[in-house]
C-alpha cells in the first residue's frame, strides 16, 4: 500500500518536473528568439533554412496522401448520411469546413509529430548521449539557441503552411469523390464550398496549427536534450516524445475547439 502511494507520488513528481522543464525550455527559446538577435546572438539563418526544408518541403508528400484520402473518405461518409435527406450537394461544405477547422490542422500535426518530432528527439538525443551537447556548451554555444530555436521556428512557420496545403488537398479529395462518383455538378461543388467556408473556419484552424507546432517542437527538443542511457535511451526517448506529442496535440485541440466554440468564433 505504502509502496503504491510512493510509486504514484514519484510518477506525479517526475511528470511535474518534466512539465516544468518544458516550460523553462519554452522561456529560453523565446529569450533566444527575441532577445538573442539584439545581443548579436541570432540563430543561424542557414540552420533555420535547413530545418524548414526538412520540416516543410519533405513532409509535403505524406501530408498530401493523408489529406487527399481523408477528403475522399469524408465525402463518402457524409454523402451516405446526406443522401437520406436528399442533400448530397452539401458534401462540399461539410468536407471543406471539417478539413479547415479540424482535420487539416490535427492530421497534419499528427503526421508531423510522427515524422519531424521523432526525428528531432532522435537527433538531439543521440547528440546528448555522445556528449555533443556538452561539447557545444563547452564551446560557449548555447544548445537552445543553436539547436532548439531553428527547429522551433521551422515548425512554427511550416506547420500552418502544411495545414493550408492539407486543407486544400482534403477539399480536392472531396471534390474528386463528389464530382466523379456522387455526381455533383463541378461548378456547384465549388460554389457551395466557397459559400459555406468562412474566413473564420480557416484561421481558427491555422491558430490551432501554430499551437500544435510549438507543442511538437518543445516536446521533441525537451525529450531529446534530456535523453540518457545510450542508444537504447534514444529509442525510448523518441517513443515517449511521439506519444506525448500525440496526446498533447489532441488535448490542445480539444481545449482550443472549446474556446472557439464557446466564444462564437
Amino acid at each position, binding site marked *: 500500500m505504502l509502496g503504491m502511494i510512493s510509486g504514484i507520488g514519484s510518477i506525479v513528481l517526475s511528470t511535474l518536473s518534466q512539465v516544468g522543464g518544458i516550460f523553462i525550455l519554452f522561456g529560453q527559446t523565446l529569450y533566444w528568439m527575441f532577445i538573442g538577435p539584439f545581443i548579436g546572438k541570432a540563430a543561424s539563418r542557414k540552420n533555420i533554412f535547413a530545418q524548414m526544408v526538412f520540416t516543410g518541403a519533405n513532409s509535403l508528400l505524406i501530408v498530401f496522401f493523408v489529406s487527399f484520402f481523408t477528403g475522399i473518405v469524408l465525402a463518402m461518409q457524409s454523402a451516405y448520411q446526406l443522401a437520406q435527406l436528399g442533400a448530397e450537394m452539401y458534401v462540399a461544405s461539410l468536407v471543406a469546413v471539417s478539413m479547415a477547422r479540424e482535420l487539416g490542422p490535427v492530421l497534419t500535426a499528427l503526421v508531423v509529430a510522427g515524422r519531424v518530432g521523432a526525428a528531432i528527439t532522435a*537527433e538531439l538525443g543521440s*547528440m546528448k548521449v*555522445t*556528449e*555533443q551537447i*556538452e*561539447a*557545444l*556548451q*563547452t*564551446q*560557449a*554555444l*548555447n544548445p537552445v539557441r543553436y539547436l532548439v530555436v531553428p527547429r522551433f521556428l521551422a515548425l512554427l512557420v511550416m506547420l500552418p503552411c502544411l495545414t493550408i496545403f492539407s486543407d486544400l488537398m482534403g477539399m480536392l479529395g472531396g471534390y474528386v469523390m463528389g464530382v466523379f462518383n456522387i455526381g455533383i455538378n463541378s461548378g456547384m461543388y465549388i460554389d457551395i464550398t466557397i459559400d459555406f467556408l468562412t474566413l473564420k473556419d480557416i484561421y481558427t484552424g491555422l491558430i490551432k496549427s501554430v499551437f500544435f507546432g510549438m507543442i511538437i517542437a518543445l516536446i521533441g527538443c525537451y525529450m531529446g536534450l534530456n535523453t540518457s542511457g545510450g542508444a537504447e535511451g534514444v529509442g525510448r526517448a523518441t517513443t515517449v516524445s511521439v506519444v506525448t506529442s500525440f496526446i498533447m496535440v489532441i488535448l490542445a485541440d480539444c481545449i482550443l475547439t472549446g474556446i472557439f466554440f464557446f466564444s462564437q468564433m
Partner: protein
Amino acid sequence: MENKEVIIEVKDLVKSFDDRKVLDGVNLKVHKGETLVIMGGSGCGKSTLLRHMTGAYKPDSGSTFIKGKDITKMKESEFDNIRKIFGMVFQYSALYDSMDVEENISLVLKEHTKLAKDIISIMVKMKLELVGLRGFEKFLPSQISGGMRRRVGLARAIAMDPEIVFYDEPTAGLDPIVAGVIDRLILDLSKKLHITSIVVTHDMRSAFTIADRIIMLYEGKIIAEGTPDEIKSGKDPRLVQFVEGNPDGPIQFFQNSGEYLEELTK
C-alpha cells in the same frame, strides 16, 4: 611552482551520483602554463573531476575557481566568456556528426569571431596540419577512424587558441606512433604557446613524457601528487601498484562488496 600564477583552483569538491560518492573532497591547484596529469583507475572519477573544471557538472559542495572567479556561482552569460578561453578534448571525441571535419573546427570561429571566411578556412587548415590531417576537411566524422576523430577533436579544441586545454584520455586507443605525436603536440602547445594543459590519462609512458606534475585519484580523493620523478619514486603502495600495473595489491580490481560465495549460493 609556488610563486606561479594559479589559473584553476578546485576547493573541497564533493559530488555524488545517486548516493554513490564519486568525488570526496578534492583540492587542487593548476598553475599557468603547466601540464597537469590526472591519473587513476577506471571509474574513479577522473572525467567527473574534469567536468567540474569545465562547468559541465555542478558540485554538491565545494567550488571551482578559474582565474580567481568561482564558476559554480556564475551566470551563464558570464561563464560563456570564460569558456572561450578553454578547449576540451573529449574521451569519445564528441564531434558534431552532422558536420564535416572543417565545419567541426570552424564552428566556434564563425560564431565567436568576426573573421572572414577565407581566413577561417586557412586557420582550419593550420589546425588540421598540426594534427596531421590536412586534406580531410570534407570528411564526415562517420567516415574517419576513431583515432582520427580524436585528433580532429584536438584540432577543434585548439581552434580558438585557448589558454587552457582539457584532455580526457587523448591517447587511449591510438597506435603508439600517433600517441607519441599527440604527446609531442601537447608538449609543444604548452612549451611554445604557454597553454595550460590538464590531461587525464592511464597511459604511464605518456604521463611521464608530458607532465610537469601528476596527481593520482583514488576513491574520490587525491592520494599522491608530485613531479614525474617524485611519482616514480613514490612509496605509497597504491601508487606503486598503479604505476607498475600490478594486478595484486591494495587496489582491488573487484569493485563490489559482499561475499562472492554468499551471493552465488543465495
